[in-house]
């Protein structure tokens, strides 16, 4: 499958806004990394995984942490193991101390570049890394190539992976980094879109319950809580309500802990009881 043939049109588990579909497809065809930002719970990570599933591609995921270094994402050399083998022998493991590659552990980027076929590479929550790590990744992602320092050998992707990057913060990424990506901010779904999403997840739940839950959900969001409930909270809540088997009573909302996560928000909610204006 060449880049120009790939088109993503949503899947049975993921509601794809037509506009977002356009964006994903432009990124796929231009072979540029797509940086997705947006509130938690808007399906940034999920999008990359669903693209891979729909196009039947394998996924390599780098879950970023603040301690991660750019090199680790490409490869690490297991020096300790090699030292150990040099001293005590590698036994029957088949490793050869003379062979550098026997002690290389490939990171997600390394695996994606060496896959020899089209894969999806997801760099999840890139904003958690240090900014110099992001700078290191810049050229690697742009050229689809990195160098193994120890033996001064370049690893190059013959087939560029489809790169997705997610970020929760909007400003921490540097301008040069942003320049190398297509950036899209996923806006919070409108009630209509949310309805589609909810229907995908709960196809047999009674429309009455869905409607009641969504009305309450959007009113709660308007109240300006510190951590307003997002899509995933709504989905959990509907699931919980369904198991309970009763319509939510607006005067005494059940299972509020599923929707509001912060202690301060829950207190604020209790102080001002939910009433339907």
């Amino acid at each position, binding site marked *: 499958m060449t880049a120009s043939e790939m088109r993503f049109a949503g899947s049975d588990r993921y509601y794809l806004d037509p506009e977002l579909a356009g*964006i994903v497809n*432009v990124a796929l065809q231009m072979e540029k990394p797509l940086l997705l930002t947006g509130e938690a719970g808007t399906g940034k990570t999920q999008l990359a995984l669903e693209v891979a599933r729909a196009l039947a591609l394998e996924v390599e995921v780098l879950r970023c942490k603040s301690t991660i270094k750019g090199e680790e994402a490409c490869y690490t050399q297991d020096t300790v193991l090699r030292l150990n083998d040099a001293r005590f022998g590698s036994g029957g493991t088949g490793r050869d101390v003379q062979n550098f590659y026997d002690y290389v552990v490939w990171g997600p980027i390394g695996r994606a570049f060496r896959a020899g076929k089209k894969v999806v590479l997801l760099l999840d929550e890139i904003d958690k890394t240090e900014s110099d790590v992001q700078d290191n990744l810049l050229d690697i992602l742009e050229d689809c190539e990195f160098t193994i320092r120890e033996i001064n050998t370049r690893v190059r992707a013959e087939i560029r992976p489809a790169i997705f990057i997610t970020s929760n913060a909007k400003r921490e990424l540097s301008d040069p980094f942003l320049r190398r*990506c297509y950036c899209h*901010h996923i806006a919070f779904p409108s009630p209509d879109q949310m309805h589609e999403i909810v229907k995908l997840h709960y196809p047999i739940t009674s429309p009455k319950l869905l409607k009641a839950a969504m009305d309450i959900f959007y009113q709660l969001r308007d109240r300006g809580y510190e951590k307003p409930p997002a899509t995933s909270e709504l989905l959990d809540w509907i699931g919980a309500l369904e198991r309970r088997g009763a319509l939510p009573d607006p005067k005494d909302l059940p299972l509020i802990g599923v929707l509001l996560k912060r202690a301060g928000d829950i207190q604020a909610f209790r102080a001002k009881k939910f009433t339907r204006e």
Partner: protein
Amino acid sequence: MSREPYNALFVDFVYLLRDYGVPAGLPDLLEVNAGLERGLVKDMDDLLVLLRLSFVRRVEHMDPFERAFALYFYGVDIPAVAEGDPELLRTPQFREWLARAIEKGDLHPLARWKMSPEELMKKFWERLREQTEEHHGGSKWIGTGGTSPYGHSGFAQGGVRMYGESRSRSALKVIGERRYIAYADTNELRNETLRQALESMKHLRRDGPRTALDIDATIRRSAKEGGEIDLVFRQEFRDRMRLVLLIDNGGESMTPFVELTRLLFGKMRDRFENIETFYFHNTVLRKVFSDDRRTRPVETEKLLLRPPDTRVVMIGDASMGPDELVSPYGALSSYEMGDSEPSICRLRRLAKRFRKTVWLNPIPRTHWNSPHTPWTLGQIRRIFQMEDMTLGGIKGMVERLSDKTGSE
């Protein structure tokens, strides 16, 4: 399609974007061309997507981009403000619409006085909505309204007219929803946008976790192991900042902003080693106060003893009588404080001691140069970097506070 025409077509668009504050450049334009050559654009929806991906990197530029797109390709001039915002009355778009409507006889010549601002605003938005609806279906390249400064013929020559039913919603209708307006940099800081501002404050961090080689421990351990080298790492000392907040809580107008700022910095507590808050009235005199009723005085000189890399944020409207700022005994309370030194000297000393100082002003930046703005604001602006309480202002403040250059 030959290559020339759409080069020319989008060059103008790049300049328009730059006018709207979107930093678009040549590489972006080449990107667009590459996309067009690959046949990615079949209708207006595709064009909107391709142009936006190529030109917009930051969510705060999203709304300006969409407005520029609507103007350039549809001739629909959308003002920068949200619906319901009385600022609309000041925008050129509103004025032009009003003049035009009166000219055409749609409105009474004295409509501005005969109708309430609310009514006028409603009419304006209705008209705008009609305009965006007219284009629904995306079958036209540019609008029929003819208000666009970019003429119809300019595009037609290029032969890039695209007719094609939109797959879903027309590009213009999408723009009309103004989904990104809450993120625009010119927005005032409100509870809803607070989260956005908080995110920008994540910048306020000088060093992340890093591991440093502990040489002493390494030698000790290696000796113990009989010469086998054993590397020991330790957590590098994490440098955290001190922050002094100086808040003008003199006037009633300041009250909502005081709460907002304290909330803002309170949330960021873990970024700072400590946060101290002091209060003053209009400007800093010999004493500031450690409580908001201004009963517990603290000598301003004592503040100056803080380490020089302490961050200082002043919050106030910088508006007072000129005497209060520049004359000895200028302020009413300077007598009781026995304060002969003009306040401006104290401000200068603060700015000199603490390089990373920002003055946050609730008066929007656009009004700072107006003739009605108190003279003192301009004076204080010469001493401190002044930012307004918009998302852009907070960003500017964060940049100043986290500036690493020349701190020590």
